[in-house]
């Protein structure tokens, strides 16, 4: 700083002049920012992963905390958007990895594997009760991911939360839908234990909406009720003999409750969605030989790519472009009358409609047939003013609010079958909407994410090609004989750290210090382990913006007359 020490000295000649031009003042007196016509701005942006994640988990942020050795801070950041990383770290289709900018260099960061490690680390640490009680009570119907998420955030906000679950075991689809080899029941149990430690109450074996527990009684009991009962109604195929088929969801539920006998040796599974994959793979593990029957081709299957791939690896037989037109029981067999299909015009789902090929009928014989052709929510328990003409709940997508005051809903109940992470997003936004409702406020919806960093904004010169770390898996030959053992293992701590270091931290400053290092005018102040641009001396050369590997610094046009100030 110029402290006014400088003074002008007049020299008579070389004899009294020093050897070199030396001043005891500094160049700080000359504020050089007046030259600037471009202004670098520290502007945090959104990694593509954040926007791609339905729960908008700030992934670069927690990875940065992890890399800085702050595990607890990393967990805290995850939990602001997703209370169950140990679960999504196993079963999420990792939308986050799809758009990862690192794919342009080598392969996406294994975000899900990192999340799984963090989630397992957090399992025993969670469960602190809220600081203060608000006295408001919320009933939550359904203990699947949407219900449990809403319970978690509402409880954190200080509300009394009671979860009503039809089954004797809480967890909903996490426990009764997803097979144990994908998500060990112990993980779900531990998550529920942590919720109990928070003070969340669970009422098990309570089916809301039946005679003993009517919806309006529950509404009177609580200040608000959040329904997250999922989508459990099996679609009807409307073919003769359909009553011979076993429901896919019921079958998975029974296995979750301990059934280990397959319904027969040769079992047909009708459908091409995730439930069909889970049913077929479970059957295989129980010793049966499943055959998947699907009326379109592999390309049109609604199952997640990863599930389809694993079913393929398991060696499960697929029959495409075929569908049963009737079924009958002959001795101990179920005989399916099949017809071959061909693809026709696109239907409203955007997929080509399967059309029967005339004269292509044939028969298939099975010991049992399981139907998994899609599910839809049962809305019969709700008052009519909450339903539209098609019988679906009328729900505000931003808040979960229904036309009935105090009645909120979310998850598969609203969307139809979707993923755990989408249910988590529903639970979270509904929880905050319910909290706002208690204060007489309404929320407009989620805050908009900042601009996404495209891969072209990344300075790839700073990153070396480093392949991702692969999770260990039980070999296919062994995994097909075990239902209970989890088929995919986790990464070690060292691997997690190495994987975290592959993250570009797109749009999020991770204090790499490049701007500080490269600024030719020393106009980056480094305070609290973060950069701050000193606009008194920044000449707007833009080097910091170019050398920022992760596009945190953006150049904007300088507004005349504003140069020199510290405002942005």
């Amino acid at each position: 700083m110029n402290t006014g020490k400088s003074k002008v000295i007049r020299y008579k000649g070389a004899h009294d002049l020093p050897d070199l031009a030396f001043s005891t003042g500094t160049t700080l007196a000359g504020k050089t920012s007046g030259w600037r016509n471009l202004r670098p701005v520290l502007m945090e942006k959104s990694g593509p992963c954040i926007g791609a994640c339905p729960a908008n988990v700030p992934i670069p942020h927690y990875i940065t905390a992890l890399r800085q050795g702050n595990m607890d801070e990393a967990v805290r950041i995850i939990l602001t958007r997703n209370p169950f990383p140990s679960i999504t770290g196993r079963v999420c289709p990792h939308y986050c990895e799809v758009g990862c900018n690192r794919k342009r260099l080598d392969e996406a960061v294994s975000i899900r594997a990192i999340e799984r490690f963090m989630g397992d680390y957090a399992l025993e640490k969670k469960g602190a009760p809220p600081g203060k009680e608000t006295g408001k009570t919320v009933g939550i119907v359904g203990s699947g991911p949407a219900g449990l998420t809403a319970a978690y955030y509402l409880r954190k906000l200080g509300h009394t939360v009671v979860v009503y679950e039809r089954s004797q075991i809480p967890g909903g689809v996490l426990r009764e839908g997803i097979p144990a080899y994908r998500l060990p029941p112990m993980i779900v149990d531990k998550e529920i234990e942590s919720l109990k430690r928070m003070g969340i109450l669970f009422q098990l074996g309570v089916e809301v909406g039946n005679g003993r527990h009517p919806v309006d009684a529950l509404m009177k009991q609580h200040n608000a009720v959040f329904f997250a009962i999922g989508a459990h109604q099996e679609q009807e195929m409307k073919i003769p003999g359909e009553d011979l088929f076993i429901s896919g969801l019921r079958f998975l539920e029974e296995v979750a409750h301990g059934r280990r006998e397959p319904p027969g040796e040769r079992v047909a599974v009708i459908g091409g969605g995730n439930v069909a994959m889970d049913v077929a793979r479970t059957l295989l593990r129980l010793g049966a030989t499943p055959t998947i029957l699907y009326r379109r081709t592999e390309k049109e299957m609604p199952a997640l790519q990863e599930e389809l791939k694993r079913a393929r690896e398991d060696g499960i037989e697929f029959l495409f472009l075929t569908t049963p037109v009737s079924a009958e029981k002959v001795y101990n067999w179920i005989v399916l009358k099949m017809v071959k299909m061909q693809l026709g015009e696109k239907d409203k789902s955007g997929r080509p409609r399967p059309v029967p090929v005339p004269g292509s009928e044939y028969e298939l014989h099975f010991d049992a047939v399981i139907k998994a052709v899609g599910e839809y929510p049962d809305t019969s328990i709700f008052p009519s003013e909450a339903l539209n003409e098609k019988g679906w709940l009328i729900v505000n997508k931003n808040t979960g609010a229904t036309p009935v005051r105090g009645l909120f809903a979310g998850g598969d109940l609203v969307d139809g079958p979707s993923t755990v992470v989408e249910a988590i997003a529903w639970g979270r936004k509904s929880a905050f909407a319910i909290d706002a409702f208690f204060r007489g406020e309404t929320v407009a919806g989620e805050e908009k994410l900042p601009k996404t960093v495209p891969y072209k904004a990344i300075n790839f010169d700073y990153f070396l090609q480093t392949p991702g770390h692969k999770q260990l898996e039980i070999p296919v030959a062994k995994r097909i004989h075990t239902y209970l053992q989890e088929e995919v293992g986790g990464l070690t701590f060292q691997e997690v750290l190495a994987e975290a270091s592959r993250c570009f931290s797109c749009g999020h400053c991770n204090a790499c210090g490049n701007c500080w290092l490269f600024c030719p005018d020393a106009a980056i102040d480094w305070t609290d382990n973060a950069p701050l641009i000193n606009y008194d001396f920044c000449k707007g050369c833009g080097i910091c913006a170019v050398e920022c590997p992760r596009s945190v610094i953006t150049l904007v046009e300088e507004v005349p007359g504003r140069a020199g100030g510290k405002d942005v």
Partner: protein
Amino acid sequence: MSKITGTTKVITGNHAVSYGALLSRVQVISAYPITPQTQIVEELSEFVADGVLPARFINVESEHSAMSACIGASAAGARAFTATSSQGLALMHEMLHWAAGSRLPIVLANVNRAMAPPWNIWTDQTDSLSQRDTGWLQVYCESNQEVLDSVIFSFKISEQVLLPSMLVLDAFVLSHTYEPVEIYPQQRVDEFLPPYDPKFTLRPSEEGTMGGLSAPDTYFEFRYKIQQAMEKAIALLPKEGELFGEILGRRYGLVEEFLLEDADTVLVTSGALTSTAKFAVHRLRQEKKKKVGVLKMRYFRPFPFETVRKILKGRKRVAVLDRNLSFGHGGIWSSEIKSALYPLKDRPPVYGYVLGLGGRDVTPKDILEIISDAEHRDELDMPEIIWKGVKK
């Protein structure tokens, strides 16, 4: 340390530079590798990495930055050293002016290499001589021992006159050729070269600016003072050369005289070429009893006018060997010698031979032919350039 110093080793000229820097206890080294200088940097970086030399080695991406880093280090009061060659020296050019204008006693070793294009990595003095007006002292070395000595010596002079020094050695002829070199015991070098005690330093904790704006009312005087410093160096160099001899055993002057007492014909040489000239002259004296001698120029800047005049006054003829060329003019040393002799009344004729450019070999036979050519030349037959060995 004790195993490294205080012994005689057979080393290359490049490693002689490195040992010179080691013995000078340099504190900051910043250099960028370039053929044929690379071994200097390699050896020094090993000294630093091994903890033999407690210095900071600053890696940079160019010679311009290497000199800039040395300037910063020297301004902060450190003894700073760098080495380069040819294109690298040319890239440093801007910063060479800056170092001298800032009066920073940086020492640079330049391995003489021809300027491109066409690419050529062999010896040629045009790279260093074309830095004539940057305010650097320049000393040309004949042997690997002189290379090592000149590093130490340059720091001693530079730190007294506050100007940077460039010591120059021939590509390959010295840089990659092994010769026995005495590596003095450290305490004897310390006796000759005390630690650097800077007059002005920049410190992060104190306010200060070097080389800020100087208007026409003072700039002129700053230039005048640089010239004064050069003149001070001329006076200081022989004294320090004596002292070097007393402490370390080898005496150095501004120039070196070889068989000059009665010489009618004087060959003026510089760098490693001098040894070839000495060899030829010695044989000529023995075999043909001709009165020839060699004047080896050590310092190019400051130019030793008085010494040169004193030695060349009254000789019959002077032949200057230039392994360099100022295009449109001639050999650089010859024009300097001519200008030095101009104030003399009875000045000898000066014949300027340009030879050996781009590392073309110069043999004793070439030297004998030059002497013969000079002896048979009419006194006034002094073209600006007498080409020796060019295939016309």
